[in-house]
């Protein structure tokens, strides 16, 4: 494997670099000297200070919400605590944090005990006529055992396919945790059970908790952390806390996984027109997710970009073709993990109802709208189903906020295609050298840029070369040709609050290959020759 250091370092270490500060490096250096000097103290203090900055204020909730929305948690070591507050795992009243945490952990302990039972252990006390492996009795513990086995293997099948590019998710104990949590959730929610995609909502939560635990352990080795930190960031309860966060997230996301169909209520106007000109997606009953993505396209896209709306309709691109995955996974396949976490920071911080999802959805469409409008059915599908890399995630979020509430949010600069200009200009074998050398971003030519994005879309779907084996890479080939995204120069109009790494900072990366790995996370199925 190419990242021998991955597990011994703080997983978000590269992010620490962005702020010019690396607690672990200091820690290691000091341990070599065998002494506890001022650097360590400052490390610890800054760990404490980071906590205080986030949670000390009496008005802390508004502040951490703002931090999440503005992308300021990107390198935070308390992201999981913020998420817990956003998701209502922790109450607003901080004095209840410890008791609430203990309560939820005890609850999970009980849930797990109830659902993950071994019939051999339990069967001793039971009637053998009902409880034997060949029993047809529905209430038989053995019947439950076999059903559980089936459910478990279905979950396991997806857990094994979770973020396959990341070593963290290849670890057996991580996989067991994911499986157990999803299994317990399914048993606690018999109507919904397990649905594909839930695993990719859980995985980032598990990862974020792990990162914070790592940071906590490094900080706590040198001095005494506060009681709150000790309880909240106790790695022993990784699984418990992940379950609590996941199930609260699912309270909002659940309808998007439900396969329960119902007739869509239609407005008067729609009733009058929908029959003669019904599109296929309008026929028959519908599941909640389909209703949702259609509302987004039919109402929000229509409102904000009528031309794009008409174009998609003309091509008969139903939003459930691309939008179901976008919404269900909260854009988990559309962005690399480090950016995805920033998107989730904002989604969760904004509201537990995840109201912002619809507007991020629209902002994503608008980002590629010129390319879509100039494209045919196939190219459009290529762009939508294999969303092009986006350089500045924060601009996208600002756009989403502006779309939802233009009065109270500043109009963001038009950031469309800027990153792609740089990407295409520098594409090639000497990509890295070129980007590192160019500190200035060339003047933009929007027309040229959008045509380069168009080419990207065409490459996604067009056949390569001539021969009979001509293939059109939609996924692996194109993605694998992409340079690491972080190395794309920043756009000109970068909001100051965004902490996207700059080129100069990238140069000082001690582990460039790790960074590369992170940036490849976007690919959902890229061939990994280096991973054996």
């Amino acid at each position, binding site marked *: 494997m190419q990242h021998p250091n991955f597990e011994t370092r703080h997983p978000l270490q590269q992010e620490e670099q962005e702020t010019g500060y690396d607690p672990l490096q200091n820690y290691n250096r000091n341990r070599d000297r065998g002494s506890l000097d001022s650097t360590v103290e400052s490390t610890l203090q800054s760990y404490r200070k980071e906590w205080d900055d986030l949670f000390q204020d009496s008005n802390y909730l508004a502040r951490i919400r703002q931090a999440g929305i503005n992308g300021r948690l990107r390198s935070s070591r308390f992201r999981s605590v913020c998420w817990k507050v956003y998701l209502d795992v922790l109450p607003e009243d901080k004095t209840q944090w410890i008791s609430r945490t203990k309560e939820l952990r005890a609850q999970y302990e009980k849930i797990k005990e109830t659902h993950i039972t071994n019939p051999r252990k339990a069967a001793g006390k039971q009637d053998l006529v009902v409880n034997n492996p060949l029993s047809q009795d529905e209430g038989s513990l053995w019947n439950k055992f076999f059903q559980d086995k089936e459910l478990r293997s*279905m979950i396991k*099948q*997806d857990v094994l*396919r*979770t*973020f*396959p*590019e990341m070593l963290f998710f290849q670890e057996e104990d991580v996989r067991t945790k994911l499986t157990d949590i999803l299994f317990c959730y399914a048993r606690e929610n018999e109507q919904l059970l397990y*649905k*594909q*995609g839930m*695993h*990719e909502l859980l995985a980032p939560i598990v990862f974020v908790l792990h990162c914070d635990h790592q940071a906590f352990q490094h900080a706590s080795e040198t001095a005494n952390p506060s009681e709150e930190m000790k309880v909240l960031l106790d790695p022993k309860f990784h699984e418990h806390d992940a379950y609590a966060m996941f199930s609260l997230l699912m309270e909002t996301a659940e309808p998007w996984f439900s*396969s329960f*169909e119902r007739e869509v209520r239609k407005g008067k106007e729609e009733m009058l027109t929908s029959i003669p000109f019904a599109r*296929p*997606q309008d*026929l*028959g*009953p*519908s*599941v909640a997710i*389909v209703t949702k993505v259609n509302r987004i396209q039919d109402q929000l896209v229509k409102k904000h970009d009528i031309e794009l709306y008409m174009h998609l309709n003309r091509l008969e691109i*139903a939003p*459930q*073709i*691309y939008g*179901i*995955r976008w919404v*269900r*996974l909260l854009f988990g*396949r559309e962005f690399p993990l480090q950016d995805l976490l920033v998107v989730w920071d904002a989604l969760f911080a904004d509201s537990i109802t995840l109201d912002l999802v619809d507007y991020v959805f629209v902002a994503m469409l608008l980002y590629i709208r010129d390319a879509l409008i100039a494209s045919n059915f*196939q190219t459009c*599908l290529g762009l939508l*189903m294999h969303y092009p890399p986006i350089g500045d995630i924060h601009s996208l979020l600002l756009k989403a906020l502006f779309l939802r509430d233009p009065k109270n949010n500043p109009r963001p600069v038009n950031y469309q295609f800027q990153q792609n200009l740089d990407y295409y200009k520098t594409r090639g074998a000497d990509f890295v050298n070129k980007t590192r050398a160019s500190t200035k971003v060339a003047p933009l030519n929007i027309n040229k840029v959008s045509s380069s994005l168009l080419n990207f879309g065409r490459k996604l*779907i*067009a*056949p390569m070369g001539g*021969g*009979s*084996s*001509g*293939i*059109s*890479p*939609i*996924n*692996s*080939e194109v993605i694998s040709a992409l340079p690491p995204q972080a190395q794309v120069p920043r756009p000109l109009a970068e909001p100051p609050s965004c902490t996207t790494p700059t080129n100069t900072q990238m140069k000082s990366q001690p582990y460039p290959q790790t960074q590369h790995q992170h940036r490849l996370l976007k690919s*959902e*199925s*890229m*061939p*990994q020759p280096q*991973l054996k």
Partner: protein
Amino acid sequence: MQNNRKEHLYKILVIGDLGVGKTSIIKRYVHQTYSTNYRATIGVDFALKVLNWDSETVRLQLWDIAGQERFGNMTRVYYREAMGAFIVFDVTRPTTFEAVSKWKEDLDSKLTLSNGQSIATVLLANKCDQKRDFLTNNSLKMDQYCKENGFVGWFETSARENININEAANFLVKHIIASENDILKSVVPDTISPQLNSDKEMTCSYWLSLD
């Protein structure tokens, strides 16, 4: 250079239960690669493959539909205008074979060609590398099953070992072209008849002439 090659575009569905290897089959066919690292398909995905077919060009649009999506109305949108389908099962898991007839029913109930026929469908017994005796034990039964359930044929396949993937695809394309010719013959020019399943240019495929 004049190039008067005729082009066909066919939409092909790849369906079947969870984890039977639909994505792997498509990746093998389109990219000539195999990996155990594919993520679960959520909703639907698609890929393109271009073939030289006699003197013509055939573009295949392969729609990879998540195993979970069989339930309900959702597949209707994914199925539309498809001209052929693979239904895939995993020879190591009998339940995935039991689901084959459900997938076939779902497909036939939501999609027919303009002449009322169901679309050409090939059954794939995938992961045959993990169960070598499948063919010897089941060959006759499978022939019978295909006849009874309206499959044009079946193949045992392995995306991992690259067994029969190209053969199955060529077989399906041959049937698609045949059924398309049937439809074209039966179309009376200059009349418009409303068809729920074909609202694009005569049939479900596009005919293009490249100059």
